[in-house]
């Protein structure tokens, strides 16, 4: 049983402390991902394990022996390293490079023998590079070269494989191929894999445990699903992320949501009526643009509801899969009356959320400028036997502003916001919003519908 144990390691570059009290241990069949932002000490950790950077404090034990007391060749027989990038000075062939992996097994005066070639061949076949054996290494593509380098590591016949962002130069199919290979080696041959990742999704898909580093310290370590939570990602990377279980792969997946660089502040508050995911991108964009956004009424399990929660948008919620109750409706109207504008997305209507449409009508009656997005024609999303369609026509008559796209909506809101500002400066003018200059174009509606069909 091979065990690697890192115990209380402190590392310095000069006088700068880059690792502090790092301790963990890995054993056979562990597939460990090391994650963390740039400069958090991931590569340093690998370098201290591979004896490139000696820790000031603490020990690294390989099978209970301090690695810094071992000979280079002894370590190299147990532990192989795949670096981030490899610059090869002289133009060796791919096979030459892989055979260099046999070095720790060869005596100083020994030439490679049958077995060494056989091991090299096997390693190259595993990474699908045997056909490149006689090609000069510097003529290979980045991906091919990286696979050759991995073969070289495998040719060492190591028990532990350390990789520093192994797939960073590879395209997506090569990434998966290499990761599948590593997983297989890990499961079938008990290889310990310890790899630095930038890609959360590769990490969660393949690793069984993870180490999350922050500023040189272990922030969280253990089972990958326990480590990669959106809270941890938020506090280590300062990035909001959605972490969900993927229905096909049954592993977690992580979607980082970018945070706005410098939120603009705008005076206009916008109430969005959406649902079924139709408001997700809109809420995100509007929030980034600096509008104060509210939303309602949304069922609790709705995607839009989750987005609103994530973006910390005030929202009127309703129990999952249930009709909008009178209570929620009233709360919605209440919230809406405070808004400077109301937006209705191309949400599908059933009897459950008809009340939202009625709320829009009331907003119009109160004189709140109302924008209706019609990316998908109402006929295709009306599950109320035409009731919703009729109500929508009613809104149109009452001069709701119909828009065909998000961009159109945003530019109209922008204009009205500017008018609002001007109105504040010149109080004689009536404060308010852009009035629709003309009735929405109806003649070309049919064409627009077709062109936007696929988006529905």
């Amino acid at each position, binding site marked *: 049983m091979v065990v690697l144990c890192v115990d209380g390691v402190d590392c310095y570059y000069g006088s700068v402390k880059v690792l502090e009290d790092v301790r963990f241990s890995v054993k056979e069949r562990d597939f460990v991902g090391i994650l963390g932002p740039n400069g958090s000490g991931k590569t340093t950790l690998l370098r201290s394990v591979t004896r490139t950077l000696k820790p000031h404090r603490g020990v690294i034990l390989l099978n209970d022996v301090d690695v810094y007391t071992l000979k280079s060749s002894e370590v190299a027989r147990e532990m192989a390293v795949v670096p981030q990038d490899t610059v090869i000075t002289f*133009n060796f062939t791919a096979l030459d490079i892989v055979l260099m992996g046999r070095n720790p097994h060869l005596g100083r005066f020994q030439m490679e023998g049958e077995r060494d070639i056989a091991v090299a061949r096997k390693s190259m076949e595993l990474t699908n590079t045997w056909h490149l054996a006689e090609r000069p290494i510097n003529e290979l593509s980045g991906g091919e070269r990286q696979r050759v380098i991995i073969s070289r590591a495998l040719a060492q016949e190591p028990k532990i494989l350390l990789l520093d962002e192994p797939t960073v130069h590879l395209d997506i199919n090569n990434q998966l191929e290499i990761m599948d290979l590593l997983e297989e080696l890990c499961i079938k041959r008990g290889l310990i894999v310890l790899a630095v990742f930038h890609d959360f999704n590769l990490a969660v898909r393949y690793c069984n445990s993870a180490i999350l580093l922050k500023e040189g310290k272990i922030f969280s370590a253990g089972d990958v699903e326990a480590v990669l939570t959106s809270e941890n990602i938020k506090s280590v990377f300062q990035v909001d992320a959605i972490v969900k279980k993927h229905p096909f792969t049954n592993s977690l997946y992580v979607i980082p949501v970018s945070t706005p660089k410098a939120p603009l502040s705008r005076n206009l508050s916008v109430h969005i009526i959406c649902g079924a995911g139709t408001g997700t991108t809109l809420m995100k964009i509007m929030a980034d643009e600096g509008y104060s956004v509210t939303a309602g009424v949304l069922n609790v399990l709705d995607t839009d509801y989750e987005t609103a929660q994530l973006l910390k948008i005030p929202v009127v919620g309703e129990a999952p899969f249930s009709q909008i109750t009178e209570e929620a409706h009233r709360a919605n109207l209440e919230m809406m009356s405070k808004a400077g504008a109301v937006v209705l997305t191309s949400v599908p209507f059933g009897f459950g959320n008809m009340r939202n449409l009625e709320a829009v009508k009331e907003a119009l009656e109160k004189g709140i400028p109302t924008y209706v997005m019609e990316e998908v024609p109402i006929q295709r999303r009306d599950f109320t036997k035409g009731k919703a369609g009729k109500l929508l026509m009613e809104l149109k008559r009452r001069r709701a502003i119909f828009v065909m796209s998000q961009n159109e909506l945003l530019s109209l809101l922008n204009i009205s916001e500017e008018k609002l500002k001007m109105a504040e400066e010149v109080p004689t003018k009536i404060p308010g919003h852009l009035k629709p200059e003309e009735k929405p174009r109806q003649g070309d509606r049919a064409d627009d519908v077709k062109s936007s069909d696929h988006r529905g």
Partner: protein
Amino acid sequence: MVDERDLTGKNGVETAYFRRFSRWKLLLIILMAALMLTIFLSLNVGFAQIPFHTVLWILVKRVPFLGSLVGSPNVSYVEETIIMQIRMPRVLAGALVGAALAAAGVVYQGIFKNPMADSYILGVSAGAAVGASLAIVLGIGFTFFGLSTVPIAAFASSIIAVFVVYNISRVGSRVPVTTLLLSGIAVSIFLSAIVAVLQVVAGGKLHVIVFWLMGGFSYVEWRDVWAVLPLVCFGTVATYFFARDLNILSLGEETAQHLGVDVEKVKKLLLILGSLVTAAAVSISGLIGFVGLIIPHITRILIGPDHRILLPTSTIIGSTFLVICDAVARVIVSPVELPVGVITALSGGPFFIYLLRKKKESYTV
């Protein structure tokens, strides 16, 4: 679709790989024979006209057993002296110096991963120049184990120069190659300035210094050869044991460490061997440029980057090349001798450029 591998046989690549080893052996035997032939032919070259068969007799006579068989032909004492006491040591010195410079050049290019590296990179040449110039200017007349002052001073001061360069670059137990390279250049420039000063104050001995700096084998005697032979042979052959390490070092020092090479130890040993060998060569020949830079490159273009074959072939080719250059230098504007460094540069430069142009696609350093 037919896979190419199926056509070449399943074990095509493996067989080719092992065939390479026997090809290497053959190559070395051929090159060694070529060197012997070159040495023999260059014994025939010189101001005094000595017939070919006479030279052959003189040599065969000295071979045990074979010598007694051929009997005693009519060879004059003068001819024998010219061949054995004048030409022979000089030709052998050329062979030794060429071997040393080329081997050290390969080693340094391997360690530094820099195509500009040559055998003089660590200040060996500048150090030797200071020592030799100083000995010439001061005119110190003592001898040491039968050797004259100038080679000893050159050898000693070049070793000191390398020692200084090494210690300037040392950080703890490590020696970063970039620092080594730069401090080598800095120390060389500094020492060259001292040589310039010595030249100015040399007065009537100026021409002696200038000739020494240009390099050549005019004054080489047997005792010089005997002094240098063990150092060069031992040093050069010792580097071969680190050929695989040099291969791996070309992947970068960190990677080499991961592949089980004790990088700092190997580097230190190779630097010592390279300096020792170069210093020994320079002490008897003066500064002969180009061999330590161009021969490794030419050999690498011709046979590839594997140091296991590159080192020995480079040694033999360097040896052969310098023997030829010296022979040419002796006779091309006879009776005046050209400095051998002129010949190495004039012939090696264009040939190198030709190879570089011809093979530039596949040649990267």
